[in-house]
């Protein structure tokens, strides 16, 4: 029996129902992936090309001209190992942020757990991530960087990154419904976030003196700092900063919970105001 009652306030995330609707999640993800690759001439190559081109640009400007300290690693490999998780996160969060507003027809005509919508957008970005991994493998072979045991923790790190993206995506998606001009804020936020994350530079340059307390604090507070640095370290076989990682892991779980709970709290109004 299903009971329909007025509801206000906080709701549980409802994992059970999400699990029940997992096939819908699968189909929506599959649709996103398929449509994206059908609409472009290059198809799945985009998933590789986007970080690859960014790598090229950053390699020229930061690697060659600015000579950013990478701790002795080849800059292209260094920057790609950071861009890979970052591109995933940025794509996932911005697509998820616009997903609910873009699914007006679904929301006003069919019932299903609404969290499925931003989750499917994030899942579609996971697909791109997997494709882009092949490029990383090629780069590692090219620069003869051997795979180490550290690589084994990469899936765990990506899971934490996924949690952060799910939470952030759900939060932005919900805000986007309530405040329709939020979509102009999202790209700006993502851009800012990128510079606050050590993707194209190293967050603690070995032996370098601390330049500014504020920017340092911001870097550490950013939950992505630890994850992306740890991912790079695990792939390239350099030591992982456990303290930063622990903070990021905690932040990922909190971000997931806060994003999903806020989404659940306001989702009942979606059909009325969208």
């Amino acid at each position: 029996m299903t009971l329909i009652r007025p509801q206000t306030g906080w709701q549980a995330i409802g994992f059970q129902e999400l699990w029940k609707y997992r096939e819908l999640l699968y189909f929506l993800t599959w649709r996103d992936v398929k449509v994206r690759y059908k609409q472009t001439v290059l198809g799945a190559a985009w998933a590789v090309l986007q970080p690859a081109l960014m790598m090229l640009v950053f390699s020229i400007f930061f690697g060659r001209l600015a000579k950013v300290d990478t701790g002795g690693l080849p800059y292209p490999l260094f920057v790609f190992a950071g861009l890979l998780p970052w591109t995933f996160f940025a794509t996932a969060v911005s697509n998820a942020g616009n997903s609910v507003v873009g699914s007006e027809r679904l929301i006003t005509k069919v019932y299903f757990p609404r969290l499925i919508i931003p989750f499917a957008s994030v899942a579609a970005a996971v697909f791109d991530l997997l494709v882009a991994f092949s490029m990383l493998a090629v780069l590692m072979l090219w620069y003869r960087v051997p795979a180490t045991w550290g690589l084994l923790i990469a899936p765990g790190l990506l899971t934490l990154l996924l949690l952060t993206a799910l939470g952030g995506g759900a939060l932005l998606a919900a805000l986007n419904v309530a405040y329709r001009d939020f979509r102009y804020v999202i790209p700006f936020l993502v851009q800012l976030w990128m510079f606050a994350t050590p993707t194209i530079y190293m967050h603690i340059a070995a032996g370098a003196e601390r330049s500014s307390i504020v920017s340092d604090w911001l870097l550490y507070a950013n939950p992505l700092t630890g994850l992306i640095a740890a991912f790079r370290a695990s792939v390239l076989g350099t030591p992982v900063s456990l303290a930063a990682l622990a903070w990021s892991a905690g932040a990922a779980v909190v971000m997931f919970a806060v994003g999903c709970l806020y989404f659940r709290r306001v989702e009942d109004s979606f059909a009325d105001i969208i």
Partner: protein
Amino acid sequence: MPQPAISIRNLGKRYRLSHSGQRAGYRTLRESLSRAATAPLRRLRGQRGETSEEFWALENVSFDVRPTEVLGVIGRNGAGKSTLLKILSRITKPTAGEVALRGRVGSLLEVGTGFHPELTGKENIFLNGAILGMSRREILDKFDAIVDFAGTERFLDTPVKHYSSGMSMRLAFAVAAQLEPELLLIDEVLAVGDGDFQKKCLGRMGDLATAGRTLVFVSHNLTAVRTLCQTAVWLERGRVKMHGHVNDVVNGYIESAECLASQRVWDSVEAAPGNELLRLHRVCVAPSGSSPAKSISVDTPIDIDFELWNLTSQATLNLSLVLYSLEGTCIFNSIAPAATVGRGLFRGRCHVPGNLLNDGVYSIRLLAAKDQASVIFDMSDLATFEVHDVERPILWFGKLVGAVRPQLDWQVGPLGTESPRG
């Protein structure tokens, strides 16, 4: 006595209206921030924060639906029919009361929800099926039946964007037709599509009804409601006006003339229906040269008047009148010759001769096209009027069938001197 499949108790749904009288929708961050910034100032001036009004789309609605019952929901536009269906299908939450549903629920508020033009027919079948709540297994099992029903087998691997609208509609309905929940909620999906398609839909719903499913069917199409449903609920301004046997309720609805409004006037330009180009001031249906209060018979010539505000400087407009029967059948569409009107009020009058319309209840839709190019105004159900039957000089008292009832020239007489096999 088995437990009801659906029991609705004191159900209510409140919407907030914004100042312009429309439903309060999303806000913008910019507005909210500037509101928050100026809030202390407003408090100093003694103004209250929000001035939105409330509106109950549904209020105190209670009724039960037995298992295997087929229930029709009727009422005017804005009576709360769609809101009720949206609550039952869990798309929106009620503000008060509760609903208990027993059994697996499927809802069909639209045909083809989630269809993506870039995907092929086959891919859309799976996507749409999943959206309607079918499992992969179920869709695989019913795949052949779906393709059969739609009759689009040759185009399964063609993207739906290359389909004609009729074809994609057939495919969409074929998926929906395979939905076999215990409780099915259906909204006016029949309003779209051609006559054949509507017949197919009605047939499928009839099958489900005979198969012992519980159906809730919202429609303007009183004939369809009468044919399909055993019981009906008539909603009026968000409340249950009548609930009972379908014929009683539908007859009550028609007789109440609740559906009738032969004249409607909007006094303020701001509140009138329309847009920034054109707004409606008055609609009136009356016997020619008489007041709208006078009744209209089959042989009465009628004038349908529209008075509109033209809000642009000067425009060349074509008014277009579409007349529908209460069952939703389009009777005719008549387009006025282009006319140039200046800013301000103007009138359009359409004269409908006597002995054209059959007896029945009709509703009016008005469209306006600018520069013979773009439709700038399109509103349905502007007025509803009834045409009464007259005493006929022939010995036939049943209802004459047909959308119209023109008086045509007949000549009947002996053929001459020759008689067969004389």
